[in-house]
């Protein structure tokens, strides 16, 4: 409860972790607010069905609140002038404000329990945060947004947050690196998917580093680091110790 998990990928695509957490929390009966900035709803729906969860059904029963970033953006850009309903969560795009307050309000309203809600703890899932920088949000604004979300979701509502970011080793994207490093310092758990250092391999798609940041909560503790390799299949992902992929054994 109240944990902040950072999903990070380098030289590879870590979105399989997002799919995992989405179906995991839905199956556990949590109320999930999913801020999906990069892909459409049907993409996640199709993958989730392979993992045994129906997003459409979850949406209908109010367990899943899905913000489809691409669609919201189109509504904002091509929509008519009159805005009878509340402002778009992606209000910062139109340039009228430079902060992500509208997005935070959306998250807060979605996860605040209403009467008749019987879901277990709220969860905020974001895929992916680096896109906000591409859309013109300042790194400080992004960090502020995450900070407000933590206070609201983790501390007040005792929920969890899972956020995906991209990073590269010799990245020249300083703004992104700033955000990623800052988030790393404040995360309870970091799942870092990396491409293999030795190159592309058909049987091992990458390696995942699991860092349990025990030092965050207790001063004397050391972080626990575990490294596994993985291979992604159509319906699941297999993890194995380094060097012990099925192709080798």
């Amino acid at each position, binding site marked *: 409860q109240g944990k902040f998990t950072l999903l990070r990928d380098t*030289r*590879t*695509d870590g*979105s*399989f972790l997002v*799919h995992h957490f989405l179906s995991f929390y839905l199956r556990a009966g949590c109320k999930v607010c999913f801020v999906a900035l*990069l*892909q*459409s709803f*049907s*993409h996640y729906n*199709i*993958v989730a069905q*392979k993992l045994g969860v129906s997003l459409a059904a979850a949406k209908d029963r109010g367990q899943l609140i899905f913000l489809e970033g*691409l*669609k919201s*953006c*189109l509504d*904002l*850009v*091509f929509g008519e002038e009159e805005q009878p309903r509340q402002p778009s969560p992606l209000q910062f*795009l*139109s*340039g009228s404000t430079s902060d992500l307050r509208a997005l935070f309000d959306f998250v807060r309203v979605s996860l605040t329990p209403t009467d008749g809600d019987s879901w277990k703890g709220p969860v905020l899932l974001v895929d992916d945060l*680096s*896109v906000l*920088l*591409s*859309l*013109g949000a300042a790194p400080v604004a992004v960090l502020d947004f995450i900070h407000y979300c933590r206070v609201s979701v983790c501390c007040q509502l005792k929920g969890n947050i899972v956020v995906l970011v*991209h990073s*590269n*080793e010799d*990245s*020249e*994207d*300083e*703004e*992104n690196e700033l955000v990623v490093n800052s988030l790393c310092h404040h995360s309870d758990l970091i799942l870092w998917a*990396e*491409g*293999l*250092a*030795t*190159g*592309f*391999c*058909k049987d091992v*798609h*990458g390696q995942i580093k699991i860092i349990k940041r025990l030092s965050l909560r207790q001063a004397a503790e050391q972080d626990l680091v575990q490294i596994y390799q993985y291979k*992604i*299949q*159509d*319906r*699941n*992902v297999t993890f194995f110790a380094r060097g012990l992929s099925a192709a080798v054994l």
Partner: protein
Amino acid sequence: LVFTEEDKYGLYSNLLFKYFLAEGVVCGHDLFVASAKEHPDNILKELPAPLLDDTYQKELGDEAAAVKSEDFQDSMKIAWRYQNLPKMEASPTTYTKFGHYYDISKKISPELCQSIKWHSFYLHEELSFEPKMKTCNMNSGYARLLQSIQRIISQEGFDGSDPQKKQRNVLRIGIQSLGSVLWGDDVCCSDTPGDPHSLTKFLYVLRGLLRKSLSACIVTVPAHLIQNKAIMERVTNLSDMVVGLESFIGSERETNPLYKDYHGLVHVHQIPRLNSLICDVSDTKDLAFRLKRKLFTIERLHLPPDLSDTVSRASKQELAGSAKLLSSGCGAMAIGKKHLDF
């Protein structure tokens, strides 16, 4: 969203662009061609002519495979570039019939062009129209282009908004040399462009438009001119498929004996991972292209055997350098950084 990094002189990426559009003509898709460089009418006249079955057998003979492209029939469209396995002894009939082949020495017939509906956007003709949408601090050229694409999509019903329309067709969008100075963006001129977010915002909105309609899009960008690498990283993130073309013209690779059969390299930086946990993983990521008189082919890069008697230090280093290039893989799966010594 297929994102192509242009080669230095734009020769080969132009060919790829034309193949994409020509395939659309032959498949009966609608086309939307946007450019700030040459008038779309001219682009359309220059598309290569399709090879018909009987002439194709004669043309290919015992040569290696040709480029193919294909797209899916559902609400999310991406154009794939498949690469055939170049078995030297295989006959052409063993290849599956995906897409069509083209003869680049011949131009497409005007009748074939007339048979499809196509729309054009030539930036310099559109400057007078004021965009009706919120420009979001985006470059006005990009904003007008988005406006135009959105208008066509909703007018022609590619987004399924017209239930009356029984025949659903695909819209192929080709955008040439995006990001170049001709579009009014200075991202190619300086390290710290005036508005670094214009291009990425444009791509995001374009991605949204593609996702909600039956369309596929190819964008070519003079990536070698973009000095701000951060923008290229963000752009890669926002695209489904990223292919880079590196031609050997004018570089030291032109005289390198390893590459004598080819005109350039194809770098696949990212392949789409849509509707699935996995993505298509082909055996190799080392592709090279060559331009013959009638065909543009992309094939696996294979090094010729090292038959020289005296292998000097210099050539050994070149080999090692090229081998390092070969071992670097696709961004969607993994990229190797460590150099394996041979």
